[in-house]
């Protein structure tokens, strides 16, 4: 098990990277009235067949030739379903994959969301060629970071250059603070 949900996101997003995605959309939506938190990781990578989808859900299936199998997806699935939430994978070969995990916020077994700022910062600055669209919503407040917009402004300056990297971290943490008012989810 991962001690924080943000680590599950960091881990599962690696599958999208390995699937040669050029755009990864990550959405975190918490609704305290409905007592739910939903996390969606959607990519435009190579996608999977129906058969492959059942395999990635099985922690004990491994061929070691496809690196998509292992504990990453089962961990994420367990983190969601153990709170009474849901977990699903939708995928089409050549189109991409969407992983959806929903959690019951107040459930005692729900792991804390953890450091999503670090997760997004790591993904963005270490995968310079991939674009990320990240949306963080708590109740009726929300913010979005779109690396395509950043790239357009930067005009060729890499996202991992020190000033830009610091800026992205500040953008993520300040806007998160405004959205959730510092409440630990």
């Amino acid at each position, binding site marked *: 098990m991962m001690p924080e949900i943000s680590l599950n996101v960091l881990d599962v997003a690696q599958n999208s990277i390995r699937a040669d995605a050029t755009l990864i959309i990550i959405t975190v939506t918490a609704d305290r009235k409905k007592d739910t938190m939903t996390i969606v990781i959607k990519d435009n990578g190579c996608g999977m067949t129906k058969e492959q989808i059942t395999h990635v859900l099985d922690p004990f299936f491994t061929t070691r030739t496809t690196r998509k199998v292992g504990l990453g997806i089962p961990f994420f699935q367990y983190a969601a379903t153990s709170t009474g939430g849901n977990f699903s994978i939708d995928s089409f070969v050549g189109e991409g994959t969407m992983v959806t995990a929903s959690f019951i916020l107040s459930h005692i077994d729900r792991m804390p969301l953890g450091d999503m700022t670090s997760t997004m910062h*790591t993904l963005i600055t270490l995968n310079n060629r991939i674009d990320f669209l990240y949306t963080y919503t708590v109740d009726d407040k929300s913010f979005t970071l779109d690396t395509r917009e950043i790239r357009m402004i930067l005009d060729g300056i890499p996202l991992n250059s020190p*000033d830009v990297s610091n800026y992205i971290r500040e953008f993520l943490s300040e806007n998160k603070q405004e959205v959730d008012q510092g409440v630990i989810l």
Partner: protein
Amino acid sequence: MKSLEELKAIREKMQNQISLRNEGEANIRVVVGMATCGIASGARPVLNALSTAVQEKGLTNVIVTQTGCIGLCQFEPIVEVTEADKEKVTYVKMTAEKALEVVEKHLVRGQIVKEYTIQNYIK
């Protein structure tokens, strides 16, 4: 809300610098294993410590990056240091503190921290 306006200032500043950093100048690669096994054993604080320290010390010849599972899950978090014309050094069971020591001794001064290398764990 923080806007993207400030980025324009960063762009102006960087475009005025004569030499832009690029990955081609880097001759040392520091690779952190960030698969499920690595992350679950604490690779994130190690990676964060490494990239912050490398940036703060202005080590422009070092590039910090990530990789998947290299098949030594019991030794995670693993950090590999690759330098041109030198044998790869594999540090195992890393922590943020150990990582800072590696930055100071290995990346800055060129001395391998032998006690953290994998050779010290498999005898």
